[in-house]
């Protein structure tokens, strides 16, 4: 399925997505190994693109998560998408057409901020809080940008790759473990 097919499936709204790099979903390359539809979105066009997808029939945002690519060997990205440390992954779902669409947004390490999707999909509230809590990526205009899983006075963001696993001292007779 090429770009033309994808544009047709998005209900014509994809015409507005000028700076969206669309991968070739039929290509059995490493970008989409299982034939899933993947689109790469720039940070600037993030909310507009997601809004156009919602208007194009993707009623539900089923998942929003983040990946820390610090120190990861070169990952396959389409031309025109510069790799950054963080990548926010949004999984959209169309109940009517029974389709999924995955959007991947590059978020730089120096300025880990994205606009919130709360206005488009209110269901992303918990998910964005989780991403902030565990990765430190902030979401602008989120109604309640606080930690959700970790205690509120916790330091650091545990799912970052440069966050050590840590060790809680436990009184055992043997020497402490390898970590």
């Amino acid at each position: 399925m090429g770009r033309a097919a994808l544009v047709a499936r998005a209900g014509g709204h994809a015409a507005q997505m000028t700076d969206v790099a669309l991968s070739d979903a039929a290509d059995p390359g490493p970008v989409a190994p299982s034939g899933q539809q993947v689109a790469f979105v720039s940070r600037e066009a993030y909310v507009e693109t997601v809004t156009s997808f919602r208007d194009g029939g993707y009623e539900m945002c089923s998942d929003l998560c983040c990946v820390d690519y610090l120190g990861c060997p070169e990952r396959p990205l389409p031309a025109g998408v510069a790799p950054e440390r963080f990548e926010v992954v949004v999984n959209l779902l169309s109940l009517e057409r029974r389709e999924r669409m995955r959007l991947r947004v590059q978020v730089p390490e120096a300025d880990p901020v994205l606009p919130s999707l709360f206005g488009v999909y209110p269901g992303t509230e918990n998910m964005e809080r989780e991403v902030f809590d565990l990765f430190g990526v902030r979401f602008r205009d989120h109604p309640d940008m606080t930690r959700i899983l970790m205690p509120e006075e916790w330091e650091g963001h545990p799912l970052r790759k440069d966050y050590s696993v840590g060790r809680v001292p436990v009184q055992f007779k043997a020497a402490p473990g390898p970590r």
Partner: protein
Amino acid sequence: MKRVTPPEAGPTSSLMVHETPEGAQELQDREKTSPAALAVERGSVLRLPEGPVLDPGDIDVEFGDDETMIINMGPQHPSTHGVLRIMMELEGETVIRSKPVIGYLHTGMEKTAEELTFVQGATNVTRMDYLAPLHNELAYSLAVESLLGVETPPRATWIRMLMSELNRISSHVMWMATNGMDLASTSMMIYGFREREMVISFFEKTTGLRMNHDYIRPGGVAADLPDGWEDDVMAIVETIPGRLDEYDEMLTGQPIFKERTEGVGILSPELAIAMSATGPLLRASGVEWDLRRSMPYLAYDEVDFDVIVGTVGDTFDRYAVRLNEIRESCRIVRQCVERMPSGDFRVQDKKVTPPPRARINESMEALIHHFKIFTRGFEVPSGEVYVAIESPRGELGCYLVADGTNKPWRLHVRAPSFVNLQCLPPLLRGGLLADAIAVISSIDPVMGEVDR
């Protein structure tokens, strides 16, 4: 409280310091709460995108702070299904605002997953949703297999389907039990545990464990079904429907139960979709969405079953949807017993599945393969995939990123309870405190999955 600081101060150290000036997780007084957060806590999320930003003065002008009080429910409370804490602002007995505060069971399982090989990973994910462990293993295994390009043999697929439907029965029956206890029907609790015990006994016979089975693994299942499994399974699916009729008599038509559940905590289909609710919560609101039917995985497109849909979306509908889903699961289990194909129960790919025990004694290569799989594991080609299945609580997704090594680069689990829990403020708003118990129970949160 133990604080962990990063080991070395790299160029990112400025990002790693205390970084939550946004405030506390708890429900605050109105003056300290932003208008947007206030709207969320009042459950009026759907109005936000259209209208202008709400003025705090417009909200609940009839109540002052001195007329209301903020109370805690949980984290230690028998009706909160684990360590769920809900803060509510009450005016008399009416809930004005509410906010679930979670994280008490957070054990960093997604971080742990990055330290475990793909072989060990199933033992980690199975501990997330402890009432439906086989569904967790299934989502994880499907994601790994999708990246590996491994196709499981038909018998493995049907065993997986059989086991996950039995697990759905045990999970829903367990929900019937706890829901009954929440609504002061203690006999229901005993009955629910009795029925669950039948399924759990079969799991113990098959997998060796009552929970945390590690039975569904990448490449197939860990062991074939035990001898005489048909009789055990048929005994379950012949007993359970009769017991469900007893539940019907005891709860469905009972005036006290109906009084406590009908019209309580109504979730409209628009709101359910906007809040990303899935599972029985979404179906009770009248949206016909079941991944087994809509996006079939395993062999669900070959079996005959109905998707149960509610009409009103209240607590009673959520009860009725789950009750009838048990009946549908029994139907699927019967078809699995009838149509179970013969053959291998795991893929015969020596790089993915260990050789049979008998082969290890006589073959050097088998011993090497066995050793390599359990020490180093197998390597998964780099890529990323999102796989979703229908767990008893909704869409259980697994987003897996592999970098070509034997450990996942990132394993994210989209937990249905975690997302469904967001629906609480709109469901509780305007209801009585006593109804809150019924509503929380009807969402069926499993805190092991919410906090991961």
